């Protein structure tokens, strides 16, 4: 049907683009097509007979094998999800069919974002090949947007490393730079750092794409002072949403807003460096005071966790994808049945539960000690177990994708799950009170469930939500239940009476919290 032909068209046009570039390393700096242009229209459930307008047989699952390998690996970034409750497997519920569709979409997204920045294919990549999201033309780190003094910036501004990193950076301007703040080593809401089995801190970072950046600049949300200002009182924060091109077309779509959160492990041995995607990075340790420059350490970082948030027109509560490296931690079932790997990054299979208590936070203090580099101050190592297992369906899909990524480090990554708003009518529905100003871009007045029934209910990455795994409502990690609480610094308009409506909901992202005040402004007293 149209799906397939569109997908083929998409691939053909992409292949056309590819042929403009040689893949020699000398041209690695040549810009490749923007992510999501054109949109990847592949979906997992394809109609059996593309020409039939009303197919008599149910959709077929996309094979992910040698026959479709090239197509899938080069299909690009999806702009919008394509899922259906229908499927050939009659033992599955509509929910499970859609989950599969979302998981497929997540893998396409993962592949597109981690494809080489130079435009070559991911199956050509080496462990340390720069990915598209690591390319500052495609994604910016949060601290490069939320600048000191609440300053504005341009997308094309050059990266300014912290002063302590300047000389090393100038020698190697291609390097990733991580400027550590609390959130770089301490998990959300200060729930604790993660210490690997070699005694080093895991590091966390957040990045956003151009549509997110443009929206933030347009409304001056990079500045806390401006968030607080009267000009922003009536703004209902509504980041751009991804949308596929119109029916039958290839161009005209847009990926919309994407936010990435990553976790890194510090790699020391060459053996390790072959199994992870790696990046050569400068890590600036947390600042102790205004005058002392913290140490700037050059480290090889290995990717261990990868979150993607993607907003689409049909899922305005965003789609939440999470990947991990396969060697991070065992599942609880594996621990109980002693089916363990010889080693993990965050678990010691030779230590018993009494000595190495599972999922415990490290002993205080948690802040890295500058003199120790990024090593933890005590012999403690995090002993982490995954509480919620991956579903069999997801494991099966992982196997298939890992199969077509064989020979690259990307075969060592797995999808945990995709969380998505499952109440579709809610996800894009209008409120009962049809006022124009409440048009359904981001419906901020949904009751009783503004999250529109997240599926699955809980989701936690063992490296990013290490200590809040579980299945207790609100207490345990759920991307959407938590991010649904995100708010900005907006204030009610100065002339508001007690009955006027006011919204400070920040459209599911906590990034706006990190905006800083303009110098000399009298804002609230925040750290």
């Amino acid at each position, binding site marked *: 049907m149209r799906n397939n032909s569109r997908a083929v068209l998409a691939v053909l046009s992409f292949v056309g683009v590819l042929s403009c570039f040689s893949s020699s390393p000398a041209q690695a700096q040549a810009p490749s097509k923007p992510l999501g242009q054109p949109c990847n229209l592949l979906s997992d459930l394809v109609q059996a007979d593309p020409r039939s307008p009303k197919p008599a047989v149910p959709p077929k699952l996309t094979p992910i094998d040698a026959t479709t390998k090239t197509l899938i690996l080069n299909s690009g970034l999806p702009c919008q999800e394509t899922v259906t409750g229908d499927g050939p497997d009659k033992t599955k519920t509509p929910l499970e069919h859609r989950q599969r569709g979302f998981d497929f979409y997540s893998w396409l997204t993962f592949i597109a974002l981690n494809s080489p920045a130079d435009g070559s294919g991911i199956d050509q990549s080496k462990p340390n090949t720069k990915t598209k999201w690591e390319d500052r033309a495609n994604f910016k780190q949060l601290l490069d947007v939320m600048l000191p003094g609440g300053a504005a910036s341009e997308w094309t501004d050059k990266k300014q490393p912290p002063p302590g990193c300047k000389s090393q950076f100038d020698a190697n301007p291609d390097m990733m730079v991580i400027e550590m703040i*609390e*959130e770089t080593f301490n998990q*959300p*809401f*200060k*729930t*604790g750092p993660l210490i690997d089995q070699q005694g080093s801190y895991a590091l966390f970072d957040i990045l956003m794409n151009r549509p997110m950046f443009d929206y933030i600049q347009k409304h001056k949300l990079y500045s806390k002072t401006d968030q607080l200002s009267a000009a922003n009182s009536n703004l209902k924060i509504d980041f751009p949403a991804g949308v596929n091109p119109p029916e039958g077309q290839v161009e005209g779509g847009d990926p919309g807003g994407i936010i990435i959160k990553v976790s890194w492990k510090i790699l020391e041995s060459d053996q390790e460096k072959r199994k992870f995607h790696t990046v050569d990075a400068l890590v600036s340790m947390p600042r102790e005071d205004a005058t002392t420059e913290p140490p700037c350490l050059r480290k090889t970082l290995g990717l261990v966790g990868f979150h993607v948030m993607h907003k689409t027109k049909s899922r305005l509560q965003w789609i939440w994808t999470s990947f991990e490296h396969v060697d991070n931690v065992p599942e609880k079932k594996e621990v109980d049945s002693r089916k363990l790997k010889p080693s993990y990054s965050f678990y010691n299979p030779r230590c018993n539960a009494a000595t190495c208590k599972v*999922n*415990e*936070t490290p002993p*205080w*203090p*948690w*802040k890295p000690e500058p003199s120790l580099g990024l090593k933890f101050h005590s012999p403690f190592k995090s002993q982490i177990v995954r509480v919620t297992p991956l579903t069999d369906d997801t494991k099966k899909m992982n196997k298939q994708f890992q199969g077509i990524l064989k020979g690259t480090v990307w075969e060592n990554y797995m999808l945990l799950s995709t969380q998505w708003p499952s109440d579709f009518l809610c996800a894009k529905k209008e409120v009962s009170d049809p006022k124009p100003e409440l048009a359904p871009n981001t419906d901020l007045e949904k009751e009783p469930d503004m999250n529109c029934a997240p599926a699955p209910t809980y989701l936690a990455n063992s490296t990013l939500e290490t*200590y*809040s795994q*579980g299945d*207790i*409502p*609100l*207490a*345990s990690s759920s991307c959407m239940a*938590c991010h*649904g*609480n*995100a*708010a*900005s*610094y907006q*204030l*009610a308009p100065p002339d508001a009476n*007690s*009955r006027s409506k*006011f919204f*400070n909901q920040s459209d599911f992202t*906590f990034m706006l*919290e990190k905006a800083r005040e303009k110098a000399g402004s*009298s804002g*609230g*007293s*925040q*750290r």
Partner: protein
Amino acid sequence: MAAESCIECDVAIVGAGFAGALIANELGKARKKVVVLEAGDRVPPNINDYMKRFYMATAKVPESPYTPEVFDGAGNLSDPSKVNAGRPTVLSLLPKGSFGDWTDPKKSYLIQKGPRPFASTYDRVAGGTSHWLGTCLRFVPADFKMKTNYPSVPQFVDWPIGYDDLNPWYGKAEEELGVSADVEEQKYLGIQFPANHKYPMPKIPSSLVDLAVADALKSLSADETKFLEMETPPTQIRVRNLPAARNSQPYRNRRACAGNTNCIPICPIQAKYDPTITLNDATSTGFVRILDRTVASGIVVGENGRVSQVNFIQYAGPRANGCVKAKIYVIAANAIETPRLLLMSKHPDPNVKGVANSSDMVGRDLMDHPYYVAWGLTATPVYPYRGPLITSGIGDLCDGPFRNKRGAFRVDIGNEGWNFVIGGDPNVTTLDFVNGMNRSKVNVGQEALFGKKLVETLNDKFTHQFRVGFLVEQTPDVENRVTLSSQFRDGLGLPRPEISYNLSDYTRQGIVAAYRMKNLLFRKMGVKEPPVEIGKDEPTRFEELIDDKVVALSYGGAGHVMGTCRMGSKKDNSVVNSFQQSWDHDNLYLVGSSTFPTGATANPTLTLAALSLRTADKILREDLK
């Protein structure tokens, strides 16, 4: 205890609650070595267990999420003689002979001698008031000078400091806890702020219930309000937003409130401040160590009158005894456990009962805010059960000439319908209309409904539910006191607190005034009260003659335990000075609301937090410099 095996540090703090945590953090930031002894369980990495316990609790009382468990395996109240670090529960405030007999030591942790029950409770984890609502009210200036202002009331004394002394510390405490409020709105009854002062966050939006109350009280006649005996009878009574340690914006890595309507007993997203937040910061300094499941059992005083060590019992695993030696000791164990510890400790002079007690005031003047509640159905829907439990109140009536005769009251406007006043709505009302019962008193016909009728009826009832509460000023009465039980012990063998408690006439007249205020409010709002009767065996029941009619009233506890180690300007009639330093032992500080000489009507937390920061500053400036 052999001296060489004691833990050594600069400052030893007993109790990891608000006061203990704040002081520990200030000292830790200044690189002083601090050891905190906390009687309760350790703070877990997440609140999964607390929330699970809460969701599963059939009685969602303030203690319900936390350990120790309220019920034992057989469904009875846990026997306090078997609990290592016990605490009272509201479920043991019930009539004699009932399930939670307030006089039965097998049910009640506190040995209540009466004549009336002391109705407030506390927890034993991270201090003991993580279950608090979040209210952060400042005292009004008059509250500090009750003896000077109202000399006809013999029980009152003045604080040795005043509002101006605490003003800057209030500001620091508000910053530490993260208080949301609007400065202009909080300027009443003499409360003022430094120029250009701002609260850390803007105020929490008012609820629809608040607006309904404000509407009803915006136009009154002098005749209607003269019973209040204010300076002049008000023709409008202002409803003001309640300053609260509840985020209205992202603040210090915590989320803004999402209106889970669960502040008491636990905020599922930690938008409400609790001491574990400061404990996290304190331990992060690297200088503060918390020993959990560690119960202070005795303060040892040396020959020179200074405290030489604190002994403790640990129960995480096999019982172990230990001790801590420090330069400075801070007891922050709440206004029942602190005097308990002082009285349990032996003073070298046999004539002195306990430590820090040359005044014989330790344990005396136990105060609460007796809490009067009333409820009814409004004329038009007010949509309760939405937002924080309380977002606004009435503070303008907290001071006036009436205070010569009767206790003041502060008004709490409840957002949670009849949840707590009828013992657990929506369960009670839903059960009534499904099973044809009338425990809520609004199913007079005892209808049993299904389907659409059930939906319409319940919607009608719930959306009109309204409840109001009054915190009443209690006089410090010398006979209201905490002593040690000679008979009953806890699971560690330590004597349990024995409580003598009564309400003075002054206090009861405050409740009477609250009752009249309730009548005025309900009349103006068009609220109809259900025909509720206070059982004759209800231990908190009392009767008053009001307008020639005998009216039965009852009180609850606000959870505000105060007064038992009062501060003063002289050592013969107080326990500590204005820095909360013991008159008897230079290196001993007693902190928390136990040092309040009078209780006024404001929730004590912000004031005790301000005092704690002031004490920490003094310790750093003078004792440890």
